[in-house]
Structure formats: C-alpha cells, structure tokens
C-alpha cells in the first residue's frame, strides 16, 4: 500500500511515516504544494494524507485538482482542530475522511485502514484473523462462524485493536477513540481495563490475542 503524506512539519511527517512503515505501507513525504502536486500527478497512491495549511497554499486546492483529474486516490484531510468549515468543505470536495489535530497515530492508522478498505476491497467489509471474523457492515464478530455477542463499546475496542494489530496501543488512545476528547478527564483507566477484560473473556476461545503491555496499554497480536 502506498501512502503520500503532504505535510510541512517534517517531524510530524517523519513520525507518521515511521509508525505506518511497520505495516506494509510505503510512505512518501511531500513538504509543500508544488511537491505534493508533482507526486500526485506522477504516481497513484492508496491514500493521501493532506494537511490544509501548507506553504504555498491550501491543501484543499490539491484535493480539488485530484478530483478534477478523476483520480481515485483515497484522501484524508488533516487540519487544525475545531474548524468546522474545513471539515465540511473537505468532505464536500470528496475527501474520504477528516482528522483534526491533535490525534493519535493509532487513530490515524485506523482511519487509513478504513479508507483503504472502503475503496479497494470493493464492499469487502469482512476482516479475518485466524478463526476471527469481523463483519464491519453488520458490526458483528464471529469465531469459527459462531456469533460472539459484543457490546457496542467492546466491538469498537476490538476493531481498533485489530486494525492496529502488532502495535502497542496506549490506554489513552483507546479511551480517546472510544470517547473523543473527554478521555483526559478520566480519573484512571479502570474502565478501559474493565472493557478489555470482558472482551478478552468473550474471545477466550481465540487464545490470548489481546496482550496487556503493563504500564502502557494493549496489543493485538498472534
């Protein structure tokens, strides 16, 4: 999978690249409008991360050009928080998703995965891992074709961990994924612990696929 990161802050871009490269993603970085335009013209990407505020103009211009060229690259807009106009304009212009800063890398990778799944798996809404099947359309989970009854929170949790499989996900990132910006108001992460515990219990027949990384968070792996 090829990803283009159009972002003027080199440190941000590098961190994103480093995080995503652990997967099978191949990341390229463009640091301004011109560079971004050139790369988008010459190559096709599975997903483009587009910052709005760029030296030389708005990232949305690139999005417009991309759509005029009838290109099918998936686009996730990254922008400053709370600018609802940007969000609406981006989605109207045909962006697949919109992420406002600050975000967690785990969240970003979940969004990228979702975009790619939507675009390229052509309605293929089922995810597989060993005996586990997640039907993202029906929001159902099966182990060896047997329905696992999960609560809404548990389902979201599993999906988030699954998409970020192989990586350590902090309790912060999980809490924020489940509850938005209010996660920082949690006195402790007991609630996350409780949900993970319940989820583990329900997935017991899968073996220990959700590992607790003491002090930091959880990891979904074989």
């Amino acid at each position, binding site marked *: 999978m090829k990803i283009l990161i159009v972002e003027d*802050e080199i*440190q*941000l871009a590098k*961190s*994103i690249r*480093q*995080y995503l490269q*652990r997967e099978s993603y191949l990341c390229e970085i463009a640091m301004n409008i011109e560079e971004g335009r050139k790369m988008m013209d010459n190559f096709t990407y599975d997903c483009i991360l587009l910052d709005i505020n760029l030296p030389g103009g708005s990232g949305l211009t690139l999005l417009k050009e991309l759509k005029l060229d009838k290109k099918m690259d998936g686009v996730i807009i990254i922008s*400053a*928080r*709370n600018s*609802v*106009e940007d969000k609406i304009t981006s989605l109207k212009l045909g962006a697949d998703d919109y992420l406002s*800063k*600050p975000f*967690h*890398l*785990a969240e970003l990778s979940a969004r990228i995965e979702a975009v790619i799944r939507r675009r390229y798996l052509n309605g293929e809404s089922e995810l597989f891992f060993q005996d586990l099947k997640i039907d993202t359309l029906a929001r159902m989970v099966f182990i060896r074709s047997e329905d696992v009854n999960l609560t809404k*929170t548990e389902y979201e949790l599993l999906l988030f961990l699954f998409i970020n499989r192989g*990586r*350590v996900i*902090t*309790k*912060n*990132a999980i*809490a924020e994924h*489940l*509850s*938005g*910006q*209010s*996660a*920082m*108001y*949690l*006195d*402790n992460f*007991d*609630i996350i612990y409780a949900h993970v515990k319940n989820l583990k219990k329900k997935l017991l027949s899968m073996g220990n696929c959700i590992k607790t*990384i*003491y*002090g*930091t*968070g959880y990891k979904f792996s074989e």
Partner: protein
Amino acid sequence: MKLLHYTSYRYFLFTALLTLISIPIFYVSLSKVFVGSIDKDLRQQAREIPTYMGAIKSEQDLALWKALDNDLNIVPADSSDFSPKPFTIKKKLPFKDESEDFRVLQKQVDILGKKYIVDIESSLIEKEDLIRTILSIQLGILFLLLSGAVLINYFINRKIWKPFYDCLYSLKQFNIEHALTDEPKELRIQEFEQLNQSIHVLSVRVHQAYFSQKEFIENASHELQTPLTVLKFKLELLLQDRQLTREQGELIADMYREIEQMQELNNNLLLLSKIENGQFVNSETINLVDIIEDVKDELSLLAESKLQHVKVRYKLKDIILPSSNKILLKVLIKNLLLNAIQYSAVEADIWMYAASGYLKVSNPGRPLEIPEEEMFKRFGRNSCSQKGNGLGLSIVKAIAQYNSYNISYEYISGLHNFKLQWN
C-alpha cells in the same frame, strides 16, 4: 446623590439660611427706623406745645384742651414720674379688646403758674401694619429670588456638566473589544477637554494591550500545537519498542498523558481566543436534541467510569435553535455535562432537561467553595483535585455570550443547576 442635585441642594440650603437670618435683622432695623421717625414727630409736637400754651387763659380752657386733644394727657407734675426720653407703653383702648402699643414723650410745662407734665402719645399700630406689609412684600421678593436663583443654578450646572455626563456615558458603554472610535469633541471648558483626551488615549491603550495579549495567547497556543504533537507522536513510536521494560513503559505513558493535558489546555485557550475574535459564524439551524444525544454518547464512557447515569428529558421532540454554530454549541453542552460529571460523586444521577427556551443541567454535590462569580472565570476551579484545566466553564460563558444566550447558576437543595437560556 447626583452631582447636579448635590450642588443645587447646597445652593438652596445657603440661600434659605440667608433668608432666615435676614428676616429678623430686617425686622429689627425696620422697626428701629420707624420708632425713630415717630419719636422725631413727637419731639416736633412737644416743641410746638408752648405755642398752644399762650391760648390757655383759664382753668376752663385747660379742661377743654384736655378733653379735646386725645393725644395729649396733662397731669400735675407731682402726681407722675418724668422721663425725658420717649418710651413705649401698652394701653387698652375703650372701644377695643386688645391693648395696643403707644409711644409717649413727656414734657414739663407751666400752665397758669402751675407745673404740669404733658404726655404726647402716638399709636404704634400703624407701625405694625406697615412693617407687616413691607415684610411680606420683602419675603415674596426673597422667595422669588431664591427659587429663581436655584433654578438658574440648576440649569446652568446642567449645561456645564453635560460634557461630564457624556463622558460618563461613553465610559459606561466602553467595551474592551472595541476602542472608542470617535475622536473627542472640541469643548469650551479646558478641564473637560483634557478629561476627554485622557480617556480617549487610555481607551486606545487598553484596547491595544488587550488586543496584543489576545494575539499573544493565540499565537503561543498555535505555535505550541505542532511541537506538542511531534512530542506525542515520538512517544507513541517509542512505546512500540519491544525492548521497553515495564517501568520505562509506565514513564512514557505518564509523559504521554501529561502531553495530552497540555494539548487540551492549549486547544481550549485557542478556542477561547477564536470565540473572542469572532471567528465562528452563527448561521446554522440546529436541533438541540441531536447535539445532546451526541454529547451524551461521547461522554458515556466517562460517566460509566464513575458509575453515573446521565438522564435526559426533552419537553419537545425537536428543539430548534436558529442562527447558531454547531461546533460551538456542542462544545458548550459538552463542557456543561463534563463539569457535572466531574463534580458529582460516584454513582450520582445527572439530569438534563431541555425545553423550547432553555436547557438545564443538574448534578448533586456539595455547595461551592468559591464565589459564584469566580466560577466562570479562567482557571477558577472549585477544588484542585479535579482533572481538567479550569477553562471549561469560561468557555461555556464565552460561547453563551457569543450567541447572546444567558447562562446562570443556582444551588438548590443539594443540586448544582446550570441553566442555559436562549431567545
């Protein structure tokens, strides 16, 4: 007391006092002048008596004279005291009930060889009448003068102080967001001119200071955003290291959490600046019910972590807010609910009630430890044990003001009640 009333009142007191003092002085001097003139008259008559004497040739003549002249009283010299100066006596007239004042001058005369004392009398009754008339005229004039002076003084003062009141009005209207735009008017009175100039200069300076402070906060928050995000990303990457020990992992997770707090603080400051700079457009028609449901959903994990229940009642199926801003309204309601969750004990019930004109959020809790006015101020939190950055309610207030909504707080029988009113 108003300045105008103060000066008018003083002026009135002074003139009234002057009038009161002047009346007895006036009376005394007037009656002195009058008595003096009567005395002069009496002396003149006394001087003329010897000329009448010549006409008295017999005892009968004397008796006749006595009988005819009422103003004269002739008694033998040995039967009465003699006083060379005129004096006042009280005498009862035969046809009147009251006694009246008379002025008497005595003169010794020889009639037919015998010594007599002649009392020349003049009634003072006219004096009383005259003084009364003069006094009442005088009082009338004084009263007219007094009221005239007070009125004139009032109107003149009012005109004089007008620039002062104008200035006061413009100060009351002063809003730190906007400097006084009109140049100060040219005024005749130097002091007022200077006052206006000073206020104008002051307002411009205050506005500039406020503006640059705001700009500073906004720039600082904006500039902090990227380094904070980079820092967070790096820590998230560091966490992926398989070699990490448990202690190292915990350290990183703690740092990570602190950075999150900083970012939230930063975002809130930025949001406040943006609201104050009017960078949001109020043009959306919003269904409050949707927003509340969204917010409730977002905060459900937080409420769940404290085993609390958020109970919402709607009076209507749809509660429509015209010309508002969805993002801001959501932030407002989220902060209200967040505040309620944070300041309620474990297992508490939090109530929200939405009607067509207002939204009420109630949560149980102990009374405030800080004054109510402090509550909506930045960093004015009730206790230090709470998470969060102390900006939540000031954001609520800023958004309410931005939308011309009214936010109020009440503590009734163990419940903290926040009420947001619109229209």
